[in-house]
Structures are given as C-alpha cells and as structure tokens.
C-alpha cells in the first residue's frame, strides 16, 4: 500500500511517500524513512514493543505509541506530530523535563512506614491490590500529558501521570509520605481541582490506565479527610492481606 507520511519537523512539514507492507507500524515506517529516504529525521524509541514509553507522538491528531500503532487503521495519509505541551528538541523528539519534574513533585517512590516490618504480600485478587493496580502499569510515555486539555490553559497542572502515581502511593498502606503527597496534589493551581474530567488521558493511555479515576479518588480523599480528619491507618497484617478478596 502506498502511504504518504507527513511529518511535522522542526524545519517545517516534510512529506514522504512510502510503500508499506501488511502489519507495519508507524515506527517501522519512521525507520524506513530514516534508513532509505532522509537520514536527518529524528525520533525517539527504544524497546519497539510498547513497554519503554519512548516513542509517543501525535498520530493523525491523536496521541499514540508509534511502535504500537499499526498502519492498517490509519489510511493513505499519516500525519505525525511531536507530543503537545512539551518543548521540542528536534523533529518528533520532545523535552520530557517538564513531565518528569511533575512526576518528581509527587515523590513517585515508596516511603516505607517504619512500623511495617514484615514483607507484605498482596494477593492479586485482594482489595488492596485493586487499589494499587490501578496505575502500576504506567510507562511514563507522557501521552496523557500531551492529550490533557487542562495543559493548554494551566501549564503548571501536574497532569494525569503524576497524579495517577500519587494516588497509587497514597492508596498504598505501606506508604508513609501520604500527607505530603496529598498536600502536593491538593494545590489550587497545579493540583487535582484543575482536572476537567474530560477523560482525554484515559482515551490515549497505551496501558489502559484511567488517570481520571485516580484524580477523582484523590478529590474524594481530600474532601473526606477535611470532614473526617486524619484517621490512623491500621498497620497491615500479613494474613489480612494475603486473604483472597479481603
């Protein structure tokens, strides 16, 4: 199939005509262009199987991973743009600095509670696991931030990925930094209250995460906490957690 690939490069839009084969992905075509047609084309990738999150871009107007987007669904003209709301380095390569400093702002790492000594085994079907499973899959590709409409007006917004990560850790019974994380996500200008529940992030996430749900849960947590005050979380007991469906 003959496909016209229009790439929005730093130097302007470039158009390439490519003869594609069945089952090819956008990333395959980009490699073909770079190898055969124009070696100056820049794009980012690493794993080529949708697990590293490097190859995010805007494909025919919608965010997606180049390595997981098949050409069959895209039609004879494919338009490729760099991700939105992020500074561009060159061609399809964007500066992820903003994305990661937002990630950093919510302390994206577990701070263990000192009183929790035993290793905690959460069975795949326990309630506890359900709470954290929500967003563990995130590969920090930045597609959600690119798709987020809030970013257009409020560039300080922490964004779906960081807030999803924050919710994950806040819901985690082993975590000790909950209060500080809640304080960060509750900020007026950058926090959860800016979310429009437009669910664009849910639509583009290549890992089927629903950051909007995490954000809604965070809002609820902040409100409930304001009314009920801080409640001590019981130290998780091993038996309780291992129990199926418990």
């Amino acid at each position, binding site marked *: 199939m003959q496909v016209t690939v229009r790439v929005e490069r730093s130097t302007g839009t470039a158009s390439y005509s490519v003869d594609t084969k069945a089952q090819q992905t956008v990333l395959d075509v980009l490699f073909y262009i770079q190898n055969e047609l124009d070696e100056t084309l820049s794009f980012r990738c690493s794993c080529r199987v949708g697990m590293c999150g490097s190859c995010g871009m805007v494909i025919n107007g919608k965010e997606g991973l180049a390595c997981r987007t098949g050409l069959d669904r895209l039609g004879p003209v494919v338009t490729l743009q760099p991700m939105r709301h992020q500074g561009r380095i060159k061609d399809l390569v964007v500066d992820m600095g903003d994305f990661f*400093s937002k990630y950093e702002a919510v302390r994206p790492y577990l701070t263990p509670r000192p009183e929790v000594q035993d290793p905690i085994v959460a069975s795949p079907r326990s309630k506890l696991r359900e709470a954290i499973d929500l967003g563990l899959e995130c590969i920090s590709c930045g597609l959600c931030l690119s798709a987020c409409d809030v970013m257009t007006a409020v560039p300080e917004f922490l964004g779906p990925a960081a807030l999803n990560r924050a919710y994950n850790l806040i819901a985690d019974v082993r975590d000790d930094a909950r209060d500080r994380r809640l304080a*960060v996500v509750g900020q007026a*200008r950058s926090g959860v209250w800016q979310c429009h529940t437009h669910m664009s992030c849910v639509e583009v996430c290549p890992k089927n995460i629903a950051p909007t749900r995490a954000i809604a849960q965070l809002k609820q947590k902040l409100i409930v906490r304001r009314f009920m005050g801080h409640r001590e979380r019981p130290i998780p007991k091993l038996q309780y957690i291992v129990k199926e469906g418990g």
Partner: protein
Amino acid sequence: MATEHVSTEPPVHSEPLQPAVSWAWVLQRFTAILLVVFLGGHLWVEHFMNTSVAVVTERLRNGIFVVLDVGLLVTVVYHGLNGLHGILKETWDGARARWVLYFLLILGMFTVFWGMDILWAFLYHHPFLVIG
C-alpha cells in the same frame, strides 16, 4: 536527559503545605445538583401553569415558593459566576484574578438583590428599591 526544568518548582521540599480542598469546586457540584431540581421545577411551573401576575403573586404568598425562587436565584448566580470565574482564572492568574474575583462577588450580590427586587415587585406590586 532533562535539559532544563521548565516546570513550576517541584514542591517536594516545601514542607508547610497542607492538603487543601477547593470549596469552590465542591460548591459548584453541589449547586449543579440543586439546579437540576430547582431549574426543572422552575421551567415546569412557569410553562405548564398559568403565569399571570395575580397567579404568581398568589403562589409567592405561599412561603414555599419564596424559598424555592430565592434558592434558585442564589444557586444559579453562584453556579454561573463561579463557572465564569473558573474560565477567567485559567488565563488570568495572580493579582488580576483577585480583582476579577472581587468584581464577580459584587456582581453576584448585586444580581441576587436584583432578583429579590423582582420577586418583591411580584409580591407587593411595586419594587422595593427602584421607585417607578
């Protein structure tokens, strides 16, 4: 790889932060639910019942309608102006946003008085504030 940190300074080490609830956000949802009831009732009453002045006056004499109408007035003014504020503060942050907020607050209070004045005119057949 992060060439420069473009974002807001990450509040990682600024400790005095407190978990904050946006009451404007909560109230916006709360008034939204109230409005579904109030506005539905308002449309029903005004369109499926007779709306001559005598009838409206008679209805308002029945205190429950005063409560309903004033309730509708307050919720609709809050919901509308807070929505406008939400839109405006996205583009104007900082000092200008505060002035917008003050302006909208005064506008809101004025609007509520205005609406009550109209209700008053229905009740007593002359307005309370503006003398005709």
